[in-house]
């Protein structure tokens, strides 16, 4: 469980100090010998522990991506191995929290709700974008590789910069707008059951960015709105209460150069979305909406 900066430099100093003292007393020698033995015993114990942990079927092996630009010895990205005792129902997030709390408090990752609601812990687990709190350990092959989301700047360990993702979400004006109000001043803006059903799945987004990270097109085109933002646009464009005017404005955003037409129907976003939103379906429907809006043969 070596999570610390390698200690070679320290050891080199020690030997240098030893040779410098010209006449070590018997007591010093004995103490040095004692220290050496204690060191050796500790190292042996650690090795045994690691071995036992590895042999024990009830532990899981995690290989976690580590990187910290602020600490000199950690600027080179590397993987740390953690052996975490397995408990029934354990998620990747649980395992990471155990590793952080028991082995290395510097292990950094975002989490909050632990129940797939807040969207803060999307990560790259065994080569796929997963919500760590929604991913069961026993469904994964070991060793479990945990990395930060691809195609995003890594801030530290498993934390990536989400700013660009939020910018794209904001670009589609993700809030209800309308200029068609019901008659009475205090009247509610009612939605038909059918319309609610239509946008139901699209309202589930928790802004985790898993889809954006999985998208090959978004990786190559920084201006592409991305699946989550387009889904958000769908959520409002398909909401009948917004009215025709607002829908026109929404379609203009959707059909811009870096909007829906960038999608190549690779289905990567739909595969990874932890809320099972049919993203590709929504993007395709908006493409057809955009075509219908612009093609007039009569």
């Amino acid at each position: 469980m070596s999570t610390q900066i390698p200690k070679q430099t320290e050891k080199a100093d020690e030997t240098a100090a030893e040779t410098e003292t010209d006449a070590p007393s018997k007591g010093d020698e004995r103490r040095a010998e004692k220290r050496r033995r204690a060191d050796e015993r500790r190292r042996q114990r650690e090795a045994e522990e690691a071995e036992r942990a590895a042999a024990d079927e009830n532990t899981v092996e995690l290989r976690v991506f580590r990187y910290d630009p602020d600490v000199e010895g950690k600027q080179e990205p590397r993987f740390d191995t953690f052996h975490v005792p397995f408990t029934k129902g354990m998620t990747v997030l649980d395992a990471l929290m155990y590793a952080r709390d028991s082995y290395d408090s510097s292990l950094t990752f975002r989490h909050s709700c632990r129940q797939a609601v807040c969207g803060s812990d999307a990560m790259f687990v065994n080569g796929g974008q997963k919500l760590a709190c929604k991913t069961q350990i026993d469904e994964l092959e070991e060793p479990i590789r945990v990395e930060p989301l691809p195609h995003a700047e890594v801030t530290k360990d498993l934390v990536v910069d989400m700013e660009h993702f939020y910018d794209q979400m904001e670009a589609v004006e993700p809030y209800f707008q309308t200029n068609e109000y019901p008659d009475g001043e205090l009247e509610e803006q009612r939605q038909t059951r059918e319309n609610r059903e239509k946008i139901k799945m699209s309202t589930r987004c928790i802004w985790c960015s898993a889809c954006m990270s999985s998208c090959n097109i978004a990786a190559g085109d920084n201006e592409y709105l991305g699946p989550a933002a387009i889904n958000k646009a769908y959520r409002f464009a398909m909401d009948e209460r917004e009215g025709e005017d607002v829908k026109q404005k929404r379609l203009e955003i959707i059909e811009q150069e870096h909007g829906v037409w960038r999608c190549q129907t690779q289905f990567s976003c739909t595969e990874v979305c932890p809320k099972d939103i049919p993203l590709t379906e929504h993007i395709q429907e908006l493409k057809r909406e955009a075509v219908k809006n612009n093609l007039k043969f009569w």
Partner: protein
Amino acid sequence: MSQSYNRGLIEDFSRWREFEAGMWAWIFHKFTGWVLIGYLFTHIAVLSTAIPASGAETAVLQAGNDVYTQTIVSLEGLLLVRVLEVGLLAVAVFHMLNGARLLLVDLGVGLESQDKSFYASLILTGAITVASVPTFIAGAF
């Protein structure tokens, strides 16, 4: 921003391994599309040998001594060309079948089974390719 963070070769490799059906379909479609364009140009080059041949004497044509016939005969005599033709058929069949799948996807038909239709395209392509082998390889040895 969204540029990929360089975490070394190992990670790139693991990403490569983890593609899902839709992504493979996209890669194969791109690849086969460009192979077909490449073939189109060689096809034009080979066919254009018919232009000088059209000026040849009738006797030469009947004897099969014109440039066009010579070119085709010598090309078809090469085992490599026969094998490449099987490959071309595979590429074309996959592009057509997956192209039909993509048209359905554009129409919003059967999006839930897009992965199955991709596998079906692959299997059908394989079957048609295998069935074509006797025709293409006949007399090559």
